């Protein structure tokens, strides 16, 4: 009897594991559980919903032996929406046009300094701690949005798939540390807070900035786009000059 139920359950599991429905549903459930805690703790940085959803889902994959490719069959529907969401960032950008025009010069300088700092500080720290050359080259473009970062990694001899992972980790870590760092420095200008967050932590930082303040969200979106451009131009050039 028990074995009959077990086989039946196993048959259902095998069926569901191949369907996009399960992975998609589990992704939404994990995120909403994270989101619930995030709201309950008043948007506490350590309760970042991306961080906790990823931890829960990685645990679940390890537990069930499901492969990432199998999981992505369902999760790709959520992943796809990143494209139109990126386009939608034009709206907060447009709404803050006046503030941005006024801050054009400080933004331009902060962009170049910040972009170089992001790569140099990551590569420098990892080099001191004995990381391999592959890891160093994969780390250099980690602050910019995934598709740009992967392209740069390929160009400078890193591993694009490792870079994709480092980019996401950078975003999560950036979204967690940004409030602490900026509060410690007593920076109250939401424009600077947003710009620094988007520059260092691309879309995941921008997602947090959008939740905290409208101007911060707009400056964060802008910094994310500009740093993608700046890193794509500066980094390969710099590496050619040094090596």
């Amino acid at each position, binding site marked *: 009897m028990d074995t009959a139920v077990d086989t039946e359950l196993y048959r259902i599991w095998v069926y569901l594991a191949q369907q996009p429905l399960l992975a998609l549903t589990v992704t939404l459930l994990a995120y909403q559980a994270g989101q619930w805690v995030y709201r309950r703790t008043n948007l506490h940085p350590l309760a970042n919903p991306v961080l906790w959803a990823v931890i829960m889902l990685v645990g679940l994959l390890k537990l069930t032996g499901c492969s*990432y490719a199998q999981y992505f069959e369902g999760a790709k529907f959520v992943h796809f929406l990143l494209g139109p969401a990126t386009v939608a960032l034009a709206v907060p950008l447009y709404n803050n046009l006046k503030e941005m025009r006024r801050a054009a010069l400080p933004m331009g300088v*902060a962009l170049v300094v910040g972009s170089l700092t992001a790569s140099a500080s990551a590569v420098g720290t990892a080099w001191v701690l004995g990381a391999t050359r592959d890891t160093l080259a994969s780390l250099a473009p980690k602050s910019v949005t995934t598709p740009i970062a992967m392209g740069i990694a390929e160009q400078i001899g890193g591993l694009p798939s490792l870079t994709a*992972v480092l980019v996401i980790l950078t975003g999560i*870590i950036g979204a967690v540390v940004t409030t602490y760092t900026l509060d410690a420095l007593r920076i109250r200008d939401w424009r600077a807070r947003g710009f620094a967050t988007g520059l*260092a932590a691309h879309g995941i930082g921008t997602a947090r900035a959008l939740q905290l303040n409208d101007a911060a969200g707009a400056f964060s979106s802008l910094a994310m*786009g500009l740093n993608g451009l700046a890193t794509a131009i500066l980094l390969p050039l710099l590496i050619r000059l040094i090596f």
Partner: protein
Amino acid sequence: MTLGFVTLLLVCQLIGETLARLLNLGLPGPVIGMLVLFTGLLIRGHVPEGLRATANGFLNNLSLLFVPAGVGVVTHLSLVADEWLAITSALVVSAVVTIAVTALVMVWLSRLTGNAPGPEARKED
């Protein structure tokens, strides 16, 4: 969310993807799509109500959209585990230093050029 405006976002992305490949810009299609929509808004002179609502629908849940890519960390767990100290230190140090340096440069230069943030752009204590 209005279907018409969701379509508008997709059309902008499609134009972006096409331009990115056509002109070899080295920027992702969606980022160029964002610039296309931004240019459209500049010409139009205001954000239509339906577009505002649709954009908010996407942006309110922006963090969710990074979860599938984030789970991709599972494919590199062993490499990350091998060099975990170097990698995590590099990411944490770099995040703190980059955020601090960028924000400080921007605040100093804003003060120097005499453009303080408006009242809405100032964080309350």
